[in-house]
């Protein structure tokens, strides 16, 4: 009843949420789940700032589940080439097993 699928995770700047989702949907994703996050990487600490900069100095973690490995690769490639030159962010893939594969 469970079938193999890929989970692509993108952690990046909050202001990119809509753009990354649009990119992934165009690449064939069928949905996403997003949570706000703090973090630190090679571009420094990123935490919920108090002011309007909250959008700029804090992160969002976006997950895309897809049954098609080539879609996963396309999302990662697209995000890295389009955004990770100028914006903070990381991206990785995990193996998962989904119920109701037809959804993804």
């Amino acid at each position, binding site marked *: 009843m469970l079938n193999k699928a890929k989970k692509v995770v993108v952690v990046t700047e909050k202001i990119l949420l809509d753009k990354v989702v649009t990119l992934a949907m165009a690449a064939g994703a069928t949905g996403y789940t997003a949570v706000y996050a703090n973090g630190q990487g090679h571009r420094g600490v990123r935490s919920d700032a*108090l002011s309007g900069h909250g959008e700029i100095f804090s992160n969002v973690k976006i997950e895309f589940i897809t049954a098609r490995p080539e879609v996963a690769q396309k999302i990662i490639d697209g995000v890295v080439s389009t955004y990770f030159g100028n914006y903070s962010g990381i991206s990785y893939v995990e193996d998962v097993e989904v119920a109701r594969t037809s959804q993804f």
Partner: protein
Amino acid sequence: MDVLLEFFHTFLTQFQTPTLAFLLGGMLAAALGSKLDIPDAIYRFCVFMLLMRIGIQGGMEIRGGDIGAMLLPALFSAVIGMTIVVLGWLTLARMNGVKKDDALATAGLFGAVSASTMAAAMFMLEDEGIYFEAWVPALYPFMDIPALVLAIVLANMYLSKKDGSTKRVAIWPIVKESLQGPALSAMLLGVAIGLFTRPEAVFEGFYDLLFRGLLTVLMITMGIEAYQRLNELRKVAHWYIAYAFVMPIVHGLIAFGLGYVAHVLVGFSPGGVILLAIIAASSSDISGPPTLRAGIPTANPSSYIGSSTGIGTPVAIAICIPLFLILGRWVFDL
């Protein structure tokens, strides 16, 4: 000599006004490692209340008054906003170790406007009993938007030329994004409500009643934020520090000059001239940064937000407010 004495006196008095004290208090608390922290929801609500209050009052004034009088000051506001960006291009952008796109983003923020600095200046004028047209704060978008648009357009032209590409920047999306931001939206909604409805009761009993207090809360937040952003500046060239210290005064002087012209030509009030100068001296802290982050993605936010929030805003509030008050008193013999 007298002027100097007066400057120090006004300056000292200003240091005792709660507005500035709360700003410095916030900075000090952050510097001492305090976990004092205004929740984000409260901060955003304070900004909303401030801009609604300013907008409603402006709208009520425009309703009763003569909209023609706004034309020249509005035009001058746009000129000032764009002049500030060009000035940044001619000064900061030429410095050693300063990336051109970082410099333009910084100049864009300094050309744009800080609602909280503007609110602090309005209080100071009210406390001093100096009249200004209530629509003056509504000049905000006329200075803010042209500055942001010009900075983004210049930066993208520069980057395209460097790449050898020829893509053009669409202006309307930038204007739209500015107008749709939470700060300008709230002010414009306030203007509309002031203009078309009778909000006097709720204005006095709520928006105006809480204005002064919420501004102190906002000032603490700005102070904490300023200290945190100062840290970011350590990573970038020292020229940003010099720029952020000196240019607010220069920007204010330019605006004071143009405001004086409007005073002579169309009777713009002395209080209005002072307020316009402080608006010009202020640098954007809420709406500008996200617009620039999206519009000039290659620019390093640490440089422009560090300069504006870390130094520009404290300088505008602590130095430019008393400075232009004194200058106005002296010029207009108030």
